[in-house]
C-alpha cells in the first residue's frame, strides 16, 4: 500500500467496524485499539495477501483482526493471564445489552456481533469463521438464547 491517500481512505472506511469487533472480542478498549492498528499495518505491509476474488476487503480485515485477537489471547494465556478484562465488564459499559454481550463466551460474542452489526449471511459467517453452516445456525441460536435469558433476567431487575 504505497499510496498514503488510499491507505487513509481504507482506514477511514473500515477502522470503526474492525475496532468495534475487537472491543467485543477482547473487551479491553486499549488493547482493541492496538490490535486495530496492528491489523491495518499487517494489511499495508503485505497488501498482496488480500485476494479480492475470495472475500471483500472488510471480511479480509475482519479475518486479520480475529487472528490478531487470538494471538493476543494466546500470549496472555502463556503469560498466565486470562485474556479477559473483568474490570471493563464490571465498570465501563454504559449499555445493558453490551454489558450482557461482554459476559457471553467469546465465540458467541463474535458470531452475534458479525451477524447483528455487520449483517453477514449464514454462508458468509461459515466461510469467515471456517465452520460448517449447521454450526453457524446452532451457535447463533445458543448465543441468542444465552443472551436473551440474561437480558430478560436483568430487565426484570431494573
Amino acid at each position, binding site marked *: 500500500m504505497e499510496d498514503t491517500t488510499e491507505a487513509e481512505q481504507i482506514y477511514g472506511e473500515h477502522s470503526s467496524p474492525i475496532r468495534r469487533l475487537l472491543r467485543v472480542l477482547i473487551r479491553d478498549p486499549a488493547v482493541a485499539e492496538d490490535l486495530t492498528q496492528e491489523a491495518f*499495518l499487517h494489511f*499495508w505491509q503485505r497488501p498482496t495477501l488480500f485476494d479480492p476474488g475470495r472475500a471483500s476487503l472488510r471480511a479480509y480485515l475482519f479475518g486479520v483482526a480475529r487472528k490478531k485477537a487470538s494471538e493476543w489471547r494466546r500470549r496472555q494465556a502463556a503469560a498466565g493471564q486470562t485474556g479477559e478484562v473483568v474490570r471493563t465488564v464490571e465498570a465501563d459499559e454504559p449499555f445493558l445489552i453490551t454489558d450482557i454481550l461482554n459476559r457471553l463466551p467469546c465465540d458467541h460474542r463474535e458470531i452475534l456481533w458479525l451477524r447483528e452489526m455487520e449483517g453477514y449471511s449464514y454462508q458468509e459467517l461459515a466461510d469467515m469463521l471456517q465452520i460448517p453452516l449447521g454450526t453457524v445456525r446452532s451457535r447463533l441460536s445458543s448465543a441468542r438464547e444465552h443472551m436473551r435469558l440474561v437480558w430478560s433476567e436483568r430487565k426484570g431487575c431494573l
Partner: protein
Amino acid sequence: MTCQEVAVFVTALYDGENVPRAAGEHIFECQGCRSKLKDYSEMGVDLRLAASIQVEPTRTPTAMLDRAGCGTSRPWAFLWQRMSVPRYTVLVLLCLLAVSIAAIPLGRKQSRDGFCSVSRRMNVERPCFGSRPRMVMIISKF
C-alpha cells in the same frame, strides 16, 4: 415439533433465512417461540443502538504508516519492512560483499609479491611493476 427442536429455526427466521414448513407452523402457533422472536428483535435493536456510538480513531493512518516505516517520508524503511526474504540474511550478505570488495586490492598486492618472488627465483632482473609484463618475461625465459 417441540420448542426445543425449532429453537434453531427461530433464530434463522429472525435472520431472514428460510425455515422448514413444520418449523414455521410451530413458530406461528407457539406463543413462547413468538415471544423469543420478539425478544431477539428488541435485543438486536438495542445492540445496534449501542454500537451506533462511534469510537473515534486515535491515530491517523499516515502517522501509523510512518511509525511502521511505511510512510513516503522514509521509503527505504518501507522497502526494508516489505522485504520478504530474511532481513538479517541480506544484511550479512551485504557485509560479506563489502568485505570481499575491500579485499581485492590486498589480494592484488599479495599476488604482485608472489610474482616478484618467482621472478627472483628465476633470476629475472627486471623489477616487478605489474603482473602482465612479468608474465611475458617469464614465458619468454622459457
